[in-house]
């Protein structure tokens, strides 16, 4: 029995801001199987606009994305003037290694930090189920 059958994401909405199509395809597949409805955005500024509609429970945010970087999107999401009362949990999903103080700074603002190569899509579903 894997988590995908448990429907842990029933009724929840995920925004996946990810420019690597293969990865977003895999995440959409696993998350949908677990009951989430998933929107994908390929670049930072579009992703930020979508995120600010405040309809999501979880935002998966890559750091190396076009137009606005993930860090810029994260800052905008945490700035109450630009984004009042964001209800979504923001999880950084990246393969990029930061200088540690930068990473610590990101981690302070985000609800989670995942290295994509370390987890399979199924494991991502397990982690999202665990943090809610």
């Amino acid at each position, binding site marked *: 029995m894997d988590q995908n059958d448990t429907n842990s994401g029933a009724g929840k909405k995920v925004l996946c801001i990810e420019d690597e199509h293969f990865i977003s395809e895999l995440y959409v597949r696993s998350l949908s199987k677990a009951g989430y409805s998933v929107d994908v955005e390929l670049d930072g500024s579009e992703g930020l606009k979508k995120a600010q509609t405040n309809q999501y429970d979880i935002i998966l945010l890559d750091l190396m994305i076009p137009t606005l970087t993930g860090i810029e999107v994260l800052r905008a999401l945490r700035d109450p003037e630009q984004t009042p009362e964001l209800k979504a949990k923001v999880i950084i999903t990246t393969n990029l*290694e930061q200088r540690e103080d930068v990473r610590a700074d990101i981690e302070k603002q985000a609800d*989670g930090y995942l290295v994509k190569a370390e987890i*399979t899509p199924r494991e991502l579903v397990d982690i999202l189920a665990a943090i809610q």
Partner: protein
Amino acid sequence: VDNLQQLLNQIRKHLVLVLVLENAILLAGIWVGSTYFSIPLAYLIAASACLAAILITVITIVTAQYVIEPTRALWQAIVHLNPYEQGVAAPDIEKLRVGRNLVASLTAQIYQLATNAEHVDIVADKQASNTRAEFIMNNLPLPLLVLDKEQNIVFSNEAASSYLGREKADIQNKNVYSVLDMSFPSDDTFDSWLNTSQVNSATSSRLWERVRLNVTDNQPTRLFDLAGYYNKDNSTGNETMMVLFDHTSQYSQDDQAVSFIALSVHELRTPLTVLRGYIEAFEEEFEGKLSPELQDFMYKMQATAQQLAAFVNNILNVARVDEDQLVLSLNEASWNEVVEAAVATMSLRAQVRGITLETNLADNLPTVGVDRVSIHEVINNLIDNAIKYTGKSTKIIVTTTLNKEGMVETTVTDHGVGIPENIMGNLFTKFYRDHRNRAQIGGTGLGLYLSKSIITAHGGNIWVRSKVGEGSTFGFTLLPFTELAAERKNSDNTEIVRGAHGWIKNHSLYRR
């Protein structure tokens, strides 16, 4: 002038007295000679003349002693002041018989003059050093600010003006924080240091790295190191000194440019993520529909992708160790749980090579303080090694025990080819591999080097015991959490941060 006149009068009086006395003696002699001894007058006058000559000589010699005394005293006073003459005492004016007042007044003036001269020297010195200090401070090619105890800027140099893009008048006599809007990488900030120093310290100094100067829109951001020096209750009113070392170009490059290794790791990880994802999707889609052989192929692909992901982490962490950037967050953990989780992730890799992983875990272990991700890598590396070198044997045993020293000991034992004694000492060296096996078994020689760095940073030891033909046991020790807890900075910080070489870092797979 009065004193001089006085001296002259004194000498004149002395001389008149001496002459009167002398003449009196002579006249008395002539009178006595003619009255009582009836000596002819001509003889007496001749004798008197002789006596007069003798008396004048004697009196002159005696008087000269008196007359020269003031001169001697003055000479003594002058020589006494001469720094190059030793052992000449100051004149004792009270003992003078002649010209005491004159000498007293003159020596007083000599001493006064000497004091003035000395003062002139000091003033000249002071002026010279003030000029020098001003020259140094103003032209120091580093921005320099001096604060008083109200934390207002009382001095700023030329470099500060040009660095901050403000006139001196726009800097001085203002509160330092209204002039410098700084951000620090951690809670250890300049103002917290200064406030603490003002309460607790007489003097204190500190260096901050990577301080950011927040500027208005039309100016470029500045990044610098900041040196602070604090000196309490300074009578000059200069209490705190700040020197800024600009590193804008270097630090902003660091911030923007990801290092070569980090970039390579990113490029390796992205396809790896995709591969692992699609393999998993395949596995799910074909679950129960594959022949045992194809199922086995699937597991081998998964295991190999896992191994590659682990290796990418090894590269990254070795780079961190080498750059002094591996820092661990040590958290309390049940050790057997950690070991079981690590063994579970390795079981597929063992299984696809026909090896079983056995655990033999002691149930009396205290909790340990570990960085889960790093310690996971250590266990993985040791098991990976055992898998590589296990030869025909099919079992690897992982044990945990509480050793005699009260440390938690973990061993990974294989019954494989073993390691010759002469190379055991080099195993934990970077890029070192067993020569005889190099052709047959892959590996970079990074795993044990990294494991040793991680275990050392945990406060433990790593070791190996091996016999050729019988197999090897790799083991490491960890401190119980209670011993590490003493390092905790404060009670609400349950995390202990430690570097392989002393850096503050986070290092985790994911965190909330």
